[in-house]
């Protein structure tokens, strides 16, 4: 088993347009020393304009390339059966005005939705009543109660998302990060199933 080549495909790789993808870009390789350099620089794929954003490189494709190049027969594929290649066209940074628009969209939106929510559940009445129940004082505008309530509203959101203006309370990922991860995973899974032609076999392909 001395000549066994172990290949572990990476899950997700970013490349530039018109780049030649070499094996070492998409995979971790363990192989006998004499063939390792050739394997690392083995060209797996060449990115063209028609590829658009994503390319899926299937493990079988990789094995085919390797056997074609080196005549090695023992190849062990470990880990994910395919790599998702994301073609990054020139760094598309968002312009500042658009960012500002989104910021104000969220700001104004959440300001008015919280007001709608308060009206919806008659929060003012509840607050007045609660204030009376607890203090015995009738006050139509119990601001002593409501101002800390409003500040607490923001604190609660920060607490939930585990962000205190960039400083973390602890090292575990926040639900937002977990959610972003799940979303990315779902997209990746979709891409693997739909963009990978080797994964599908339809009736009229036969």
């Amino acid at each position: 088993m001395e000549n066994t080549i172990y290949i572990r495909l990476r899950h997700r790789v970013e490349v530039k347009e018109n780049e030649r993808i070499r094996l070492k870009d998409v995979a971790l390789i363990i192989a006998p020393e004499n063939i390792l350099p050739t394997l690392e620089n083995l060209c797996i794929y060449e990115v063209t304009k028609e590829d658009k954003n994503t390319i899926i490189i299937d493990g079988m494709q990789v094995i085919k390339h390797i056997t074609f190049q080196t005549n090695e027969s023992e190849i062990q594929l470990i880990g994910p059966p395919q790599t998702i290649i994301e073609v990054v066209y020139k760094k598309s940074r968002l312009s500042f005005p658009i960012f500002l628009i989104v910021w104000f969209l969220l700001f104004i939106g959440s300001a008015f939705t919280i007001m709608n929510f308060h009206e919806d559940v008659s929060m003012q009445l509840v607050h007045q009543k609660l204030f009376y129940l607890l203090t015995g004082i009738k006050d139509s505008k119990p601001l002593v109660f409501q101002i800390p309530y409003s500040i607490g509203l923001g604190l609660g959101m920060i607490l939930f998302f585990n962000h205190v203006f960039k400083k973390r309370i602890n090292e575990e990922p926040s639900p937002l990060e977990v959610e972003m991860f799940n979303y990315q995973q779902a997209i990746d899974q979709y891409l693997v199933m739909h963009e990978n032609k080797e994964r599908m076999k339809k009736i009229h392909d036969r």
Partner: protein
Amino acid sequence: MIAKILFVIIVGLACGLAVGAGFVAFITVLSIIPRLMQLTKTMTKILYYEAAVVLGVVSGAWLSLQEPVFSINRYFLLVFGLFYGVFVGMLSAALTEVLNVFPLLAKRIKLQERLLYLLMAMVFGKIFGSLFHWIFFVDM
């Protein structure tokens, strides 16, 4: 008479069961308690937290039905208000998260690096909206 009373007791119990179960389900879906435990690293105290929620619901129900009047100093309500607000804030943050607003926004308009600022937009929006509501809007 006894049959009537028994019937009312059963109906009341059933209503309470349904509402209580609904409340717990809501809290569970939004996973606020796990979040708090994760933040404070107190996973082992889960039973006490459950008890806190149940006691809170029961005493809230009792307060709103019996309407007793206490005479606590009004400045104590600063603390009550703050806790109340933090809880509602967590609720609304959890709701935003359940609705997947942020992952979508970030992906669609490529805002991964500035996500935090957008989060702050929502936080300030909530605080501003709430203050505006209590100080000016209710008088209009």
